[in-house]
Each structure stands twice: as C-alpha cells, then as structure tokens.
C-alpha cells in the first residue's frame, strides 16, 4: 500500500523540476531484496526526512544514490535527466554529498584535511594548505559552526556534535545540490543534536535539497518539510509534514498504513498503485 500526497499542490512541495527522482529502485543482497521498487522525489530548498524501522533499507537506499552500491533495477533522474552513478566520484560530480552514519571522517587528520580529503588544492606538486585552511574556515563560519575553535585540530579531539558539523560542512563545500545525512543525531546528546538540526535547517534555507534519515521523530518533525516512510524496502508514504502527526508516522513505519492519515489527512490520495496489488 502506497500513500502519496497529491503532486499538484501539497504543502511544503515547491513547484519546478525535481532535483532528484528515484523510480522503482531495486537492490538485493543475495536472496534478500532490500529495496523493492522505491520511488522518491527530492526538490531543492526542501528537507525530506526518510524514516523507517531498523533494517527498512534506508542506508541501502542512500548508498545506492551515492554510488556505493549499484542498483539492480530502476531509474535515477537528476534535474530531469536520466543518470547512472557508478561510484562516489560520479555522485559528487552531480552535486550529491553524503554524510554517513558511521562518519567517514579520518580521526588522525585535522578539520581542514578532512574537509578537503580527496579534493585537495595544490600549488604545483605541493598542497596549498593556506588556501584550504581559509576556505574551510569560511565554510564553517557561513554555516555558523562556531564551536570548532581551531580548524587545525585533529578530528579525534572533537565532540560528537562538532564532528557531525564538520562532516556536514565538508558536504556543502563543493557546490553540492543535494546533501544526504544518515542518522546525523543518533549518537548525540541534547545540545549537540540541537546544533546539528539547526545546521540542517540552514542547508534547506540555502536552497539545497536535503535528505535526512532519522529514527527520532522529534527531530524529523522539527526539520523536515516532507516525510517519506520506508518499510521493508517499500516506500509506504511520502507526505508533507503538516499532513501527518507522529502517531500516524509510527503506524506507517510499523504496519505500512495509517487509517488516521487516510481519514484526516487533507492531501493524501492513493494515486500510486499499491505494490502488493501490482
């Protein structure tokens, strides 16, 4: 059963060509089909929360978009054009940056070295440290990340929230258009979560498309414009935040349907064919 908010005028869904459209994405690991025909549309300036129970396939979906896994079936449209992403470099070339659940920062490198990792600036053969340090500092400042005192300290010496902030700043340094965050607050305390959520909101305000995976519905309702619910590899809902409450999201996550949503929600229609019927 797929419940989809109306495409015509849903709250929180600005018009214009979608940035990224996923159509019927399938991925299997051995005998297990982890993604079973997933559709998802992401727009610029919009924060979409991807929620779902443990093992629903959220991380797998993200890694497929990022080029870490190749998909078995389905299409990816980027700014309306059909694209294939074979590796992380392809994704980065499109403007897709991912902040992974297990932070992909190198502990022994400092903040600047991490933010430029794989894309170092050079003067001749040597690394242009001054220019990188300056840009890293500017990016952090523009995102109002003020708690990181020195960009030359090793990442290992940062707190969890600071590390996440650095990882997010790393993601927005590259004229990226879509930033994907996998459970960015899962390991954080209250105030550190606050920092990161504020940062996520600022990304949306900057006009970036943001896809944030989270277990925490408080977080989701705070930052998301739209909420997409993945259950057992299927997208069971993709709705504007204003059209649902957390209880119905929990119902969608656990049972795949919510009577409250169909009864009370102003927008949802069952326009998309249910996959069980297909």
């Amino acid at each position, binding site marked *: 059963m797929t419940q989809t908010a109306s495409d015509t005028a849903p709250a929180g869904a600005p018009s214009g060509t979608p940035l990224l459209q996923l159509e019927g994405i399938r991925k299997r690991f051995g005998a297990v089909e982890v993604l079973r025909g997933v559709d998802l549309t992401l727009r610029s300036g919009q924060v979409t929360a991807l929620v779902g129970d443990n093992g629903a396939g959220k991380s797998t979906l993200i890694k497929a978009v990022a080029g870490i896994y190749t998909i078995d079936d389905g299409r990816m449209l980027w700014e309306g054009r059909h694209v294939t992403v074979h590796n992380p470099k392809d994704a980065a070339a499109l403007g897709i940056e991912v902040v992974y659940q297990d932070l992909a920062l190198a502990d022994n490198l400092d903040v600047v*070295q991490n933010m430029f990792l794989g894309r170092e600036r050079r003067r001749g053969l040597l690394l242009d440290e001054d220019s990188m340090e300056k840009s890293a500092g500017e990016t952090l400042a523009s995102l109002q990340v003020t708690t990181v005192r020195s960009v030359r300290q090793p990442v290992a010496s940062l707190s969890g929230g600071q590390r996440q902030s650095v990882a997010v700043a790393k993601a927005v340094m590259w004229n990226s258009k879509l930033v994907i965050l996998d459970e960015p607050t899962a390991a954080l305390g209250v105030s*550190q979560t606050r920092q990161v959520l504020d940062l996520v909101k600022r990304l949306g305000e900057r006009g970036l498309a943001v896809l944030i995976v989270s277990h925490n519905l408080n977080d989701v309702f705070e930052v998301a414009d739209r909420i997409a619910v993945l259950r057992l590899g299927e997208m069971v809902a993709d709705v504007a935040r204003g059209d649902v409450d957390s209880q119905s999201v929990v119902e969608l996550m656990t049972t795949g349907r919510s009577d409250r949503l169909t009864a009370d929600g102003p927008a949802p229609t069952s326009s998309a064919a249910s996959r069980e019927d297909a």
Partner: protein
Amino acid sequence: MITTPSTPSATAPDPGATGGGGSRPGLARLRGRVFSSSSPAWIFLVLVVIVAVFSVIKPHQFLSSFDIKSIFINASVDLVMAVGMTFVIVTAGIDLSVGSVLVFSGVVAVKVMEALASGATAVSAGWGVILVGLLAGMAAGAAWGVAQGAVIAKAKVPPFIVTLGGFGAALGLSQVLTNGVDASDVPAKLGNTIGNGSLGPFPWLVIIALVVAVIGAGVLQSTRFGRYTFAIGSNAEGARRTGINVDRHLLKVYAVVGLLSGLAGDLSLAHFTTTTLASHNNDNLTVITAVILGGTSLFGGVGSMFGTVVGVLIPVVLDAGLVIVGVQTFWQGVAVGVVLVLAVYADQLRRKNNSRR
C-alpha cells in the same frame, strides 16, 4: 511526542558537553595535542640524552669525527628502507620483505653489471655499466614491491603474510641467482665513490640517505600522496567513500618501499662491494623498530619522517656509544627492546584517550 529508540552507534555520545565547545573540549584539545606530538619529540629527547651521556663519559672519542661518520654510514642504508617503511606503516600496513628485497636488488644489479661488462667480472666496469646495473637493482626492488602491493590491495591477503612470503622468496631467488655464493665482483669505481667515498667531509651514502629522507618527508607531509597515505591508515573505508582509489594507492605505497629497498640494495652493494646474502635477515625488524621508535603508529594514520630519522639513529648511536664506553654492545638490544615496547604502549594509551572522546 513519540520517539522510536535510537540505534546505538560507534561514536560515543559526549555526556559532559553542554555548549558543544565549553572548557572541557578546550582541555581535551590541549591533551590531544600534547599526546599526538609527544612521540617524535619525546624520542628525539631520548636521542639527545643518549648522545649527551656518552659525550660526557668519553667526550673526545664519542664526538670525534670518525665515530660520527661511522654512525651515520651505518644508519644510512637502514634509513633508506625506513623511509619506505614509514609510508607503509602509516597506511597501517607492514613490510617484512625489505632486507631480502635489498639482497635481491643487489644481486640483480651485480648480475646486470656482469652481463654488460666486457671482462668475465664486473670489477673494472665503467660508469655506463654501473649506472644501468644500479637502475636495474632499483627496478627489481620496485617490481617486487608492485607484485606484493597487488596481492595486498587486490587479493586482500594481509600485508604481514604477503611480505613474509616475499621475505623468503626474495632471499631464495637471490640464492638461486648466485648459487648461494656471494657475488663480489662489484665495480671498483662504485665501491670507491658512492660506497666509501665522500663529497668533502660528507660520505656519499649519508648524503643520498638524507636526500631520500628529505624528499620522503616532503611527500608525506605536503603532497596528495602523503595525505592519502595518512587518510587510508586512519580510515580506509572513509577514504574510499571520499573517492580516493584506496587499492591503487596501497599498490603505489608498496611499490615505493620496494623501490627504496632496491636503492638500499645498491647502496649496500656499493659499500660492502659484495651481495651480503646472509646479512639481512633482521633488517625488517631493525627498520620496523626504528619507524615505531620514531613515533609512527603501528595502527596507522600517524607518523613523521623526522621521527623515523631519529628512530634509525638511536640503536646505532647506542651501539657506538656502548663500544666506546666499554660496555658489551649486547645491552643495545635490551635497551632498544624496552624502549620499543614503551613506545607502542604510549601509542595505545594515546589511541584509547582519543576514542574515549
């Protein structure tokens, strides 16, 4: 509000932080800095103390230019290998084959010189032949490194095993090529210049080794190659996700250590004017010890060429000093062993300290 339980994660939450950047992180940062820079600085201090002690006990002998010269000559062949080993260990790898690759490269160099020389031996060969032979030695070392790197990076066999196999195979091949008898027809011109000659007061071996170390330091600290070396040792999967071709980089790193072992083979050949088949079984341990003493982390991601230079010098200086003072040099092994274990223990403390944050 309804909140589903959050997954436990690898990163520990920071329970004490309230503002994200209060006084605790400041203190932690200071502690982190002291710890991360302590190893090379500390070991340099150890070297200074050793030199000071021997200088006070026997001022004239220890600081005489003969001893200083011999200390540096003894260290230079090891230093060339240690520069390569530093790159390998920073990636969290290891190379046990260096001593055998040194021998193998020396054998290849001599055999090529013999083949090209006009007489039956290469003793009176000219510079053209010598140069080709030396390049062949380095090429042999590099090729050996590439082969090992390919197995490590592509076939995912642990470097410990691959290079342990390489250690035995390279020595065995050297013995096959020489029938187990050292080839000693090394060109006299080579032995008299690079091997045992000097440029002014500076022995050629020392100059070459220092040039290699300086270049190695520059590459490690200031180029993409060095940066990726650290990144892979620190978080290989993270490096891969940033788009770094980790396999290819590892292959290059093992090629570099092979190349430098080949150069060390040339230098050793020039110095001893023989292939020294039986003398390099412990080079791997000597070189690894030096690199670790110098503060490079066996767990990867941390290291410096300066530390490696100091780490190479400590055992050699101890050796020379103990001889002069009249203590059995066997104590050198004891002292270095103890310091090595302490160095790795300090490194483990540092890591635990970091991961607790």
